[in-house]
């Protein structure tokens, strides 16, 4: 394993020391400078396309962190993911997810200029502090340019980011091309730009740790202010918070993390670390504090697992692996996320649809019986299946399924002639439902000025999500006008319901996504 790492590092340095133009065997990558952004560590001797399955020894070595190098790399990328996750969750909520993209490109001219100009001040153009200063200044200029375009012209955020990204990057390329002619050795510059995940050294890890700590402290101190900035900046402004200053602090954090990360892992990876963990964390919680922690966790885990995988599998570059692990976690969160994940939302909708079907069936039974001339609603009276089916626009499959459920729960009984009747508990439940429906109808008629002919639909949309407390309040509200003993009489002729169900199928279908999403939102 040491040999492998050594090979990787030596190959990388060998590769890194040549100028761009003489990287002969890897021409695919020199399609464009951007390819390097992802920090590819290449093992040129690998001739096969398949991934060698590593020996158990290799697994053991990496997982037990026995190698100093692996330890450093994993620590560095893990911390970087952590810090980027924290800062990223704020930029995501501020709808500036791609800010990191623009700013990481904006650092390039600063790096080139620092390299070119440093000798004039008697400094070493390749020393890290000089390059970092250049990158930081250039990043700040990028922030200023974004703010200029967004605030002083009529262009929007996306155009501002796109302009800053491409123009600064173009300028950077022009400057770097000049830099390559001059001093001859620009190797230091290249690792700076393209990143060197696999060869992060202890100093880099320390730098990352420092930056992570700094951003952690700043976020912890300004948590309330940054929260306010992200959710309602006008409100923050009206409460006297310095919005522009806070915005600058946030962008400065992005610049800090980007610069540190850039020189460790490369540009595209940096963007991914700023965006993906935060976007993934968003699926798990509505609480910002928790989201920040989860995002930090996902970023850290991505860094650790990605670099570990790259250490175990010899020909998987670490930078892209970190991104792929992060986006794997993202997709996992998107489907399984506890508060906004797709599965949770689908399950919630399914549950609601079931509840709606249930209530519609019982109400249909009750209203059918009510419409009969005979002595009113009572348990044990027959309701034919066909008339239930015609009351609403539901498929017979859905109706049968719901009937089976009610039969199981003892709310209905099936008679010999296949017709249905309510049991005593079914009667109680259905009277409650009809009562609630009509209360809402009455409320709409008396307090919202809805015409009696139209309340049925409106009540349909909301009755399924009425809370018990709301029912009590509705009753109190309506008691002033009429007595609400037992089930309220329907405020409109009942035959209309059946007619409505047919004419307005499009809007009253329970499974209709529009209706159910509406009700879901109301909940």
């Amino acid at each position, binding site marked *: 394993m040491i040999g492998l790492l050594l090979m990787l590092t030596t190959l990388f340095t060998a590769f890194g020391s040549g100028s761009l133009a003489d990287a002969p065997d890897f021409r695919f990558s020199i399609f464009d400078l951007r390819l390097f952004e992802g920090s590819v560590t290449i093992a040129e001797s690998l001739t096969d396309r398949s991934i060698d399955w590593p020996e158990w020894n290799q697994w053991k070595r990496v997982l037990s962190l026995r190698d100093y190098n692996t330890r450093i790399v994993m620590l560095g990328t893990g911390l970087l993911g952590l810090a980027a996750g924290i800062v990223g969750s704020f930029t995501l909520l501020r709808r500036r997810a791609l800010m990191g993209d623009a700013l990481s490109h904006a650092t390039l001219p600063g790096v080139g200029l620092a390299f070119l100009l440093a000798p004039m001040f008697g400094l070493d153009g390749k020393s890290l502090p000089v390059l970092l200063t250049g990158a930081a200044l250039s990043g700040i200029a990028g922030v200023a340019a974004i703010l200029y375009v967004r605030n002083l012209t009529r262009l929007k955020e996306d155009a501002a980011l796109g302009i800053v990204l491409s123009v600064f990057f173009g300028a950077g*390329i022009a400057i770097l091309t000049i830099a390559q002619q001059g001093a001859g050795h620009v190797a230091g510059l290249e690792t700076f730009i393209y990143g060197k995940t696999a060869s992060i050294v202890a100093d880099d890890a320390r730098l990352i740790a420092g930056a992570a700590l700094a951003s952690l402290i700043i976020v912890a101190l300004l948590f309330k202010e940054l929260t306010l900035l992200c959710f309602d900046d006008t409100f923050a402004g009206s409460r006297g918070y310095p919005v522009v200053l806070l915005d600058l602090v946030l962008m400065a954090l992005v610049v800090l993390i980007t610069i540190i990360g850039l020189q460790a892992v490369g540009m595209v990876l940096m963007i991914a670390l700023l965006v993906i963990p935060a976007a993934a964390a968003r699926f798990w919680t509505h609480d910002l504090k928790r989201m920040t922690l989860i995002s930090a966790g996902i970023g850290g885990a991505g860094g650790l697992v990605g670099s570990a995988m790259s250490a175990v599998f010899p020909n998987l570059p670490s930078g892209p692996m970190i991104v792929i692990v992060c986006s794997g976690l993202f997709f996992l969160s998107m489907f399984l996320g506890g508060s906004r994940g797709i599965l949770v939302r689908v399950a919630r909708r399914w549950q609601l649809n079931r509840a709606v079907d249930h209530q519609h069936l019982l109400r249909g039974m009750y209203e059918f019986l009510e419409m009969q001339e005979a002595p009113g609603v009572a348990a044990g009276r027959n309701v034919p299946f066909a008339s239930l089916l015609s009351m609403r626009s539901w498929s017979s499959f859905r109706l049968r399924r719901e009937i089976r459920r009610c039969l199981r729960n003892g709310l209905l009984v099936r008679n010999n002639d296949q017709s249905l009747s309510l049991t005593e508990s079914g009667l109680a439940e259905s009277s409650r439902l009809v009562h609630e429906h009509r209360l809402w109808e009455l409320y709409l008629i008396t307090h919202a000025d809805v015409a009696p002919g139209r309340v049925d639909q409106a009540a349909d949309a909301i009755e399924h999500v009425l809370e018990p407390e709301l029912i009590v309040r509705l009753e109190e509200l309506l008691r002033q006008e009429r007595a609400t003993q037992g089930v309220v009489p329907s405020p409109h002729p009942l035959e209309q319901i059946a007619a409505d169900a047919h004419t307005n199928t499009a809007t009253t279908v329970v499974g209709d996504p529009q209706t159910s999403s509406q009700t879901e939102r109301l909940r």
Partner: protein
Amino acid sequence: MSLIENWSWHYDGWIVLAGVLCAVSASLPGNFLLLRRMSLLGDAISHAILPGLAVAFLLTGSRSSLPMFVGAAVVGILTALFTEWIRNLGEVDEGASMGVVFTTLFAIGLVLIVQAADHVDLDPGCVLYGAIESMFVHTVVIAGQSIPRVVVVLGCVTIINLLFVLVFFKELKLSAFDPALSTSIGFSARLMHYLLMVIVAVTAVASFETVGNILVVAMFVVPPATAYLLTDRLGMMIFLSAIVAMASAVLGHLSAVNVPHLFGYQSTSTSGMMAFCAGLLFFGASLVSPRAGVIVRIVRRQKLALRILSEDLIALLFRMDERSPDCAVSVQKLCSVLLCRRWLATWLMNRHARTGHVIQSESGHRLTNAGRRLGAELVRSHRLWEQYLVLEGGVTVDRIHHQAEKLEHFTDRELRDRLDSVTAAPELDPHGSRIPSEHKD
């Protein structure tokens, strides 16, 4: 130093032509990306097509153009699809879903390429980031002329994009501004969206392969943004964006060749300088654009402020004249009331003296008849507005002055007459001051 020292038509001419073609072909669809607020999509797609190129290469084992184009176009559409899919399903905002998609695709592309690293056998036609300079390696002979392949490819893409924009102009316009309307009257906005994505992907890969993607990403955004600042008409905007694109390509090459020489270096990357020149043109337009330029707006605001101040001076003189007829007022006194700078007031009063509104004497300034007439108009506007605000606006008397103070500067004869009739031709304003009557012509 001459700009075209070291210039040869055979060499630089082709480079500029390739740059112009690339810039124009990218800026045409870029207009619609800008209007749809998807400017960063060009950047995203030019990263995301990497796995498409890699898969096309792994499948065919060759680096010929057609599979690469197809691979890139397919992944370009997938990028757009995935972005929309994640945005809708996951309820994430556009930027974030784009960020997730393109970084992931880029990473996958890198991994694939590393797997194929040893098999990559690439002709130098697409070597180097943005190296237009190396395009002479591959030439095509057409009608006896040897033409660089790059120029032919980019020429085709430009023509395709131009035809696309011309043929679908109406549909693109409608779907950019009002997708719902567009879909409801039968042009599927979704279809247009994906067609646009295909065009963006094809343009990106054509330029990516030949002149590098720095240039193409810049040209998707910057020329349309520049044109957007200069005009309000879509047709004009597209035309202007093409002009800006051409200009930045030409300027870019000239400066790439010449500027580094000023500092004793050799020429630098043409693509980079083209992007940078586009940025300069954008900055210039943002400063001096006739309608929205930053400087233009500052100048306009200053001119308005000056006009208001000079009118305030006359109105103040008129009010003093009302109290004690034919008095002379010093500039110092005027300044202390209006809280303005002394030199500004002096300068404005001199201007009024030249236009015959005031007479300057030892003791101070005095209104002429013309000046009195102007002052009467302003004060009449002010007091009519006060009356109107109290009668019709229901504003209390102590709060009307500031509003009337603003409105008086934008009130002409016609509006005054209407105010007069609405407030039933009052004699006195709410504060009890007499409202001057309109001058009889």
